[in-house]
């Protein structure tokens, strides 16, 4: 099974999946500004840590595109770490996150409220 939260839905009650997806949104709310800030300040290590956290959370809920964009950001932070490269990577992460937020909202609407 693939796709957003597919593995979670196979393993867990829907109510638990709902609370996990809500927490995922909270994680993104906290981490995306940190990615943007670190890129703007050209701070490679904070940028890498924030991307690492997003990649982990995205991987856990099956948000493959966001996970890939975040891992690319981690690689950029380790390699070039120029302000421009970080800004480009941050933009890719933000775009992927925006897409996944829509998918999360759509899925949450279909999951029963507890």
């Amino acid at each position, binding site marked *: *099974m*693939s*796709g*957003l*939260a*597919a*593995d*979670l*839905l*196979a*393993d*867990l*009650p*829907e109510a*638990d999946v709902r*609370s*996990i997806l809500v*927490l*995922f949104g*909270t*994680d993104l709310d906290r981490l995306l500004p940190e990615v943007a800030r670190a890129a703007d300040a050209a701070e490679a290590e904070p940028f890498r*840590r924030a991307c*690492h*956290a997003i*990649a*982990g*959370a995205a*991987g*856990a*809920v*099956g*948000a*493959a*595109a966001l996970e890939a964009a975040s891992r690319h950001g981690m690689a950029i932070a380790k390699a070039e770490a120029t302000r421009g490269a970080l800004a480009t990577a941050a933009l890719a992460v933000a775009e992927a996150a925006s*897409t*996944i937020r829509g*998918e999360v909202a*759509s*899925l949450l609407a*279909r*999951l029963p409220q507890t």
Partner: protein
Amino acid sequence: MAPAPVPAPNAPTPSAPASRARVLIVEDSATQAEIARVHVLQLGHAPEVVGSVAAARDWLRDARPDAVLLDIELPDGSGLDVLRALRAEGDDAAVIVVTANASINAAVEAMRAGATDFLVKPYARARLAVTLANALEKRALLAQLSRAQAQLGRDRFYGFIGASERMQAVYRTIENVAQSRASVFITGESGTGKELAAEAIHRASARSSRRFVALNCGAIPRDLLESEVFGHVKGAFTGAVADREGAAKLADGGTLFLDEIGEMPFAMQVKLLRFVQTGTFNPVGTAREERVDVRFVCATNRDPMLEVKAGRFREDLYYRLYVVPLELPPLRDRGEDVLLVARHFLAQFSREEKRNFRDFDAEAEAVLRAYAWPGNVRQLQNVIRNVVVLNDATTVTAAMLPPPLCSPPSAAPQSAPASAAGTGIESRDASQLPAEAAAGAAGAAAAPDLEEILPLALMEKRLILAALSRTGQDVQRAAVLLDISPSTIYRKLAQWKA
């Protein structure tokens, strides 16, 4: 990405593991921590979540998990630091390192740090279930192995020191009998640790939260013994100015240890028999019957069956109490234990007396091995205390050992009489003691005449010598009677000898 279709409601019921494990999840991402928490809960375990190295260390200060799901990259450091700290403290929790980095190097580093297993993120519940179950099983097996190895060759047991086969048998008997309510009859020469064995039985039993009450039947005047055991009410006899609970009542729910039970007067044995049979007794001076729940442990340094045959011990009481016999071996039959015990006392007394002793030289070891130790561990204890108080060096030499140990080994007694009390200083020859003490050893020393007022130093000397005489030259017991340290007695004896 198109949203995945919602599968048919899948409501997995929590698995039923053999036992509910306490699982600490160390994960800074709220999303991943929640996924792990729900999985662990669904697997029938009890999850706890922390999000940093510092929080993990704080949590581990107060609690012990069965398993840890440990993220490596945490905001304030590496999860491997938590792992190393756990292992450094000897914690055997099953630690599963969880990371997105699936490289061999990461796995090797985690395993070197003491991880039980390694899990790559993201993981499905089935993978977590298998990994966690295996890790917990491995931990349980290692603990079982460790317990079995400890039982096979342990050298410490509830205050006992000894790794010999004879002592392993003693430890096993104590463990086996502890959980039962059966009476235990401990036999063994003086100084072999009969009271220690009784306490060990109590501490290893389900009664350990209640009192262990020890009563030395030989040390209590005959006419007071009944009151000591059963208590009395105010006015029961001259001097009974208030109600007083006896050992039987104090030991309710716990263990009553009757030491030197062979010394108990025959008339008192009748009353004890009734108590053992019914669990009830009457405090002295009242017809009011009291009922208690007491486990009996008795001890004697005599052969109890011989005492029965000689008519000094009631046969019916003997059979009531002699349910599980426990024989403590004399020190001379415990092989290398003599050195193990000697080293223990050397370290303890060196610490107490602020000396630098570390070990014995080969000659001193040979002397300790060859000696027959008629006074058993208590005598060894006194000898080592004597050495530590009167000498200071890093190594104990044979010359430091008091007579008769410092004589050539061939001159040392090779066997001890069964009745030898052997309590330490009695093993010295009379020349080691001042004239008064030597006289006391022969049973001639008397307590100082309290009508006669002498200089304090002389009164002190007389009192110490009288206490030694009263206790059969047992320095430990004399020190207890005088409420002073045994080393004080040794120092005084050395001063007087000089």
